[in-house]
């Protein structure tokens, strides 16, 4: 590893600090847009229909709700840094524990979806570039247009309908075995693979327009070989950066997918939290996804820099 790379990593980590603090700040201040008082919600959850004024005041004091906004934020931040996100209103368990239980499900789907997205987007980009003037290219661009105009949940529902109801070859929900993984990952990767594939197609076209590709063509190399060996390695960098960004879309999309396929992952946790007005849990969800997303993106940036230090993707 060169000195520049180490320097780059150092800068990256330093630039992460304000972003992480900002994310925690947004997460914390989200509570303040809720209608009603937190103590009322807690008392409501605990089943007490009519709480006395004294109980409310006591709870307010316990939760520190009478302190100023900044004091509350500082308390909360210190707790978070100690790995304590508080307890769920609904289940009473610790939020960290709760997230920890849900992670495996979402991780499996997310990894599958990212793998499939990579595969599909490479295929889409390469094929639609290779056949860009033919009927296949036209068909693929039509397919892309359709995919980008359909809400993700509709794709998932249609897949369930065709594969589970009409053909009956896939389970429609749950994650009992590998076959339960197929439909959720496919429905998550279809849309994002088209988006990334279109970027790849554009990048490939840009590279093929440059002199080294034209010269290679003049030397008599086949189109296929130029595409795969000359243009692809240069065009793939922005695509890797986009894949990093799409982990965010996948984390967000998992809410809908887990709802449709009834998978007990992080997204389902968020929906449950909203349903039971379990605000600490929802906070934990936002904080966790934010941190994961930022981390993944930073790692992708570092990898890209290590591969090609000349390329600063963020400046484009």
């Amino acid at each position, binding site marked *: 590893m060169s000195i520049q790379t180490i320097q780059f990593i150092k800068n990256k980590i330093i630039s992460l600090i304000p972003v*992480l603090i900002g994310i925690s700040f947004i997460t914390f201040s989200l509570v303040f*847009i809720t209608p009603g008082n937190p103590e009322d919600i807690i008392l409501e959850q605990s089943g007490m229909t009519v709480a006395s004024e004294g109980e409310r005041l006591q709870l307010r004091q316990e939760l520190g709700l009478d302190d100023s906004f900044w004091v509350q934020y500082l308390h909360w931040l210190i707790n978070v840094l100690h790995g304590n996100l508080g307890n769920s209103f609904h289940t009473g368990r610790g939020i960290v524990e709760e997230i920890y239980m849900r992670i495996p499900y979402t991780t499996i789907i997310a990894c599958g979806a990212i793998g499939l997205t990579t595969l599909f987007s490479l295929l889409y980009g390469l094929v639609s570039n290779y056949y860009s003037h033919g009927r296949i290219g036209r068909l693929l661009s039509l397919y892309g247009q*359709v995919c980008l105009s359909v*809400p993700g949940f509709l794709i998932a529902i249609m897949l369930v*309908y065709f594969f589970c109801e009409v053909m009956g070859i896939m389970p429609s929900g749950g994650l009992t075995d590998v076959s339960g993984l197929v439909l959720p990952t496919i429905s998550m990767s279809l849309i994002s693979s088209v988006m990334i594939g279109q970027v790849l197609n554009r990048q490939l076209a840009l590279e093929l327009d440059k002199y080294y590709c034209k010269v290679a063509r003049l030397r008599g190399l086949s189109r296929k070989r130029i595409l795969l060996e000359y243009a692809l390695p240069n065009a793939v960098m922005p695509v890797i950066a986009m894949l990093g960004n799409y982990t965010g879309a996948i984390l967000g999309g998992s*809410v809908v997918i887990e709802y449709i396929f009834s998978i007990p992952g992080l997204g389902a946790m968020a929906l449950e939290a909203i349903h039971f007005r379990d605000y600490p849990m929802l906070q934990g969800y936002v904080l966790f996804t934010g941190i994961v997303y930022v981390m993944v993106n930073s790692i992708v940036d570092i990898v890209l820099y290590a591969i090609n230090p000349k390329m600063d993707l963020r400046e484009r």
Partner: protein
Amino acid sequence: MPKMSDSKWSIYLSIFVLLCIIVSGLAAPLIMPYNPFQPDMSIRLQSPNSEHWLGTDALGRDMLSRMMLGSRNTIILSLVCTSIAMTAGGIIGMLVGYYGQTADKIYNVICNIFQGIPGTCLMIAIAGFWGPGIGGLILAVVISNWTGFSRIIRAEVIRIRQAGYIEGLICLGAGDMRIIFHHILPNLRGIMLVLGTQRLGRSILSIAGLSFLGLGIQPPAPDWSVMINDSMLYYRSAPYLVLIPGCGIFLLVSSINNIGKHLERCFGWHKNEVRPE
């Protein structure tokens, strides 16, 4: 690349479809064949037939009438969200792009923070914290979308600012506000139009997603995504209940996307953003 005649044909088709949806939404009270709120259990779950052209839903309400009325909320809400996000993002992007320096640095950090939380997660969380309703929906879509606008506007303003005529205006003693509003803003019209159209399609999809999860428009308001969510229980026996509103969303978004693409080609402006959202 499609041929010119090809794209012309598709653009006319898109405008036609969009107009149909808007007109049927506006004129719904006049041309609706049935009352969209009137349940009638004796005719529930009928597939499309001569009396009910698009069938009836689980409560026996006429689907055609509900479809006509269902576009209203989506279109109005997405227009409101997009215009608020565009105004906020545009103003911030313009000021930051024009003044630069410290403002630019602070802006970059703030942008990184907002883009650090995945857009959909933030949207769901805001709508969830706010509680079900339209206010939360608008806030959610605006907060997770303004950065996208402002980044592009900022880049464009920085580009325009370097032009010779701006330098000339500064030499002539023109004030900042005069330059921004009389000379930079008119140059942004094209980009604003293209961006606005593209984001409109995206925000329709976001709103549909949130409403599908029960976080946006609330039943019994007839809304396409709410209709899909309502019929989730019956899609095995009556798949048309999901398909018809789904087709509605698809036609609306694809025609808007098509128009956006056409505008992009007209203004000769291609987005070159690596970061989505």
